[in-house]
């Protein structure tokens, strides 16, 4: 399968998601007691639902919104659980490590629609 890189044509929503991902990661690695309630609220939303938001946008092309939301929430939560669990088992658990995994997955899912498969039905 060949892929064409159409990263230069990122949609506004993708740019927003990528910016949110970057901002959330930066906020997460700040020292404790900085950022207050806004940081806390952002962390709860991004860490638990960040990958889900990216996946939801991707899935809308493949299934109805309600089903897409369910799959997205499940993926998001399981990314967090497994990311954290893998680092715990390896003895490398750190907040920035798990946040990094969540951010990477979010970024990858955000960019995925921009990597269109050439030929055949992408579905």
């Amino acid at each position: 399968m060949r892929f064409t890189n159409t990263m230069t044509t990122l949609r506004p929503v993708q740019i927003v998601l990528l910016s949110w991902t970057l901002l959330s990661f930066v906020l997460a690695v700040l020292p404790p007691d900085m950022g207050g309630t806004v940081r806390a609220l952002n962390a709860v939303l991004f860490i638990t639902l960040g990958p889900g938001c990216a996946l939801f946008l991707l899935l809308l092309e493949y299934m109805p919104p309600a089903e897409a939301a369910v799959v997205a929430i499940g993926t998001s939560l399981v990314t967090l659980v497994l990311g954290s669990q893998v680092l715990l088992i390896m003895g490398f658990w750190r907040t920035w490590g798990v946040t990094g995994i969540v951010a990477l997955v979010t970024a990858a899912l955000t960019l995925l629609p921009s990597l269109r498969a050439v030929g055949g039905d992408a579905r």
Partner: protein
Amino acid sequence: MRRRGAGTSAAPILALFGLIDQRVPVSRRLPPSRDDLLRVRDRTLAGLAPVQPLIFPVLVVVTGCAAATAGDQERIGSWGLVQALPGLYFISLALLTVSFFMELFGRGGRERQVVLAVHLVGLVVLLHGVAGFLEQEPRFPTAWLHAGYTEQILERHFAPGSVDARFTWPGFFGAAATVTGAAGLDSAIPLLRWAPIFMVLLYLPPLFVIGRQLTGSVTATWLGLWMFLLVNWVGQDYFAPQTLGFTLYLTAVAMLVAFFRQPSPGPGPLEQTPRWSWLTRGDLLAFDGRPDVETAPRTRVALIILLMVIQAGLAMTHQLSPIVLVLACGGLVLVGRCRLTVLPVIAGVFTLAWISVGTTDYWLGHLDTIFGGVGNVQEVLSNSVGERVEGSTVHLVVVRLRLALTASVWAMMVAAALLLWFRRRPPLTLFTLGIVPFATLAQNYGDEGVMRIFLFSSPFACLLVGQAVTSLLHLPRVKPAALVAALTLLPLFLVTRYGNESFEQVRPDEIDAIHALYRLAPRGADLVSPTSQVPWRFTYATDYDYGRPEYADAFLTGRRPAVRWLLGGGAENASGAYLVVTRSQEIYAYEALGQPRDWFDEVRPKLHSKNGYRLLFRNQDASIYEYEVPR
């Protein structure tokens, strides 16, 4: 001719709606005519039209939250939170319910779904956030304990499985520690207060998909969801692994019933028609609900992989949830409502693999706890029901109300299934999902077995009841009866859900006392509490030896040997021992353990130096004693 220069106070508002030209100096503008004002009103109302149906429920919820905040925590008594809530809170709840049913049985259209969803979110906030609004500290000592386990991972980056069984399924604690760390918090305690709202909101999307798919009716789904929120008294929505496990369970079930239910052969891997299923042979039973959501083979492969990943995550998060998911998959395959016939096997392998490898620290010493009750249903029932039916008179009423509500929901599930069956719409999938949790009776899950069965069963029971009621809506009086039932369930929910609040609330002075305990007691000391209702271990969760008196029951009755030999006759801990008694424990022993109301007044005089005790700290809600084995 209009007079110039007068009535200029409305000019900015009119300019906002483009009714007057702002470039004209204010002093030269004409006053607005009646027609102008009417036009402004009409335009404003037209602009508000899309959000108009949302204004009332939002206002009601805001009013209810404000009312709950104004409640008096000191008034929480044997009946729980209901005694402390002002009347305005109940009025808000009732108004929200009436508004929901008017919307549900009223107009149709896509916007109706948004309005109903806002009502549902409002109900979650009012019912599951009420303690957060009213109480000064986050409720429930076990949630504080889980905050301590979260801090253990946040600070020390590992989960010591030998300390507590929960650490051998650390998926939730690792996830919570990540959120806590990323939020810049030192502890997860600030998250405890709002965790129930957040987690219950996460239940709703999968439940909506399950309901819409299996009942085939959006009205039945909304009705079922409303009912679920009103009967879900078990309180497993706090900061706990069960909550995350339940969300993942519902997500997996939603995916199964939305994409993999129809017995048509799929070209993807693992997708086979369960030909041997006797129920689907020769269309013995009509297919229930909507057909599967159409997806391409490649999407289905991705979904199957995701289902396995969810099962893997679930296996590392909670003891019971992955087992129930295996049972649910197996049940659906057996009745021919899941074509992923290999999935239960794979899910079972994941679950057993984690128990075999990941939880050895725990089960090596607790084989009897895990397998001791297998097959002994009577013992399981006795543990989870019999042991709870004790305590004060009011507490017994609350417990019996819970049992009655639980039994009623299950009875209604069976009645609804029979009704739909007779109407040739057998709700096979929902009924199967509603009864498979009963299979966990074969395993002893401590004193919460029946509660967990109800947790896993009730969403499907409620959706079934919703479907049955919707099928009867053409009959007169069914709609008013549904509304009356929902209104009746409101106070019943508050009593059954928050009926233990007199000892499940956490008082600020109790927290002050525990902080004092950690200042006074050197690390490694024995910390003892007469009952389990103590909000400790929210920090230093693994740094002390936490326990109960050696002769706990006798200690509560003030028997001298039990008081004198707090830790039995064993070797003395070099770091010392400390006894902490809080008001919640005093109330718990009276309300739930059947002790006299003044039991601690009997015990307190015996906590003197001759028996080895020295009072170190005291405030209005807690006392801390240092204990040395008497010579």
